[in-house]
């Protein structure tokens, strides 16, 4: 059963929400992101420029409708890596752009396989329908893995308490095993 570890990361030590509870105690919540390790070697153009894009930042965003591949990543893909999926004529115009990070960007839909890896050597290839933003490199965001569009098809995303892991939670994306 293929599985890959995901990791909670606090990317800014100062990113902490602090608040007072009614009893006067101080509550804190760290600003965490769920990170996946991606290895695009073999999918990007050969040569230093293309292969500098082989290990992009990748965050798992459980609130994203679909995965998002920004242009500075997809523009390095080899031909054939992405299967274009033209919009159906019934697709409303307002759904054909993506508003994010202070801007609105047109996008194309496409399908690709994203190879997830983890530091232990485990790997899981996920076939996803994603938004490929046409932003001219202006949209500076990580590769964003949403949960719809294939990531969870036949798979389980789960977290469980693990005192040995940073922030006490281990996260795993794995193929759904039979009983």
């Amino acid at each position, binding site marked *: 059963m293929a599985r890959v570890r995901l990791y909670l990361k606090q990317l800014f*030590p100062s990113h902490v929400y602090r608040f007072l509870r009614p009893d006067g105690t101080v509550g804190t919540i760290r600003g965490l992101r769920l990170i996946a390790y991606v290895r695009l*070697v073999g999918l990007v153009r050969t040569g230093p420029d293309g*292969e500098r894009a082989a290990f992009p930042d990748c965050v798992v965003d459980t609130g994203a409708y679909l995965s998002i591949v920004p242009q500075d990543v997809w523009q390095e893909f080899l031909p054939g890596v992405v299967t274009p999926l033209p919009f159906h004529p019934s697709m409303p115009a307002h759904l054909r752009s993506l508003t994010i990070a202070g801007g609105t960007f047109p996008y194309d839909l496409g399908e690709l396989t994203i190879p997830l890896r983890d530091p232990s050597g485990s790997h899981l290839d996920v076939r996803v329908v994603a938004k490929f933003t046409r932003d001219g490199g202006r949209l500076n965001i990580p590769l964003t893995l949403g949960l719809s569009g294939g990531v969870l098809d036949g798979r389980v995303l789960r977290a469980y308490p693990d005192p040995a892991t940073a922030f006490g939670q281990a996260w795993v994306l794995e193929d759904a095993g039979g009983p």
Partner: protein
Amino acid sequence: MSAQPQPAQPQEKQQVMTEEDADRAFASVIWFYDQIAAGRFVEYEGQFIGICGEQVVAAAPSRPELYQKLDALGDSIKQFQVVVRYIPSGPNDPYFGR
């Protein structure tokens, strides 16, 4: 008969990332996340950085400018082991701050 000295062959320029390059680049990514979580890289906030091994080898305000700087380093670094990261300017930077 003594052997004739052979003229040095020009070394072929590397064209493709090898498995070893990829493994080392991946190790740099792991190292990067450990470092940024520890509060490193504040001097690069708002910039793109190129990492080779456990070292920042170049930084620039945009990806194209960074690539120019990396290219200018030539063979002084392992070009195929470089990974690129953006260092957000803070928690409210849209890069990670959504």
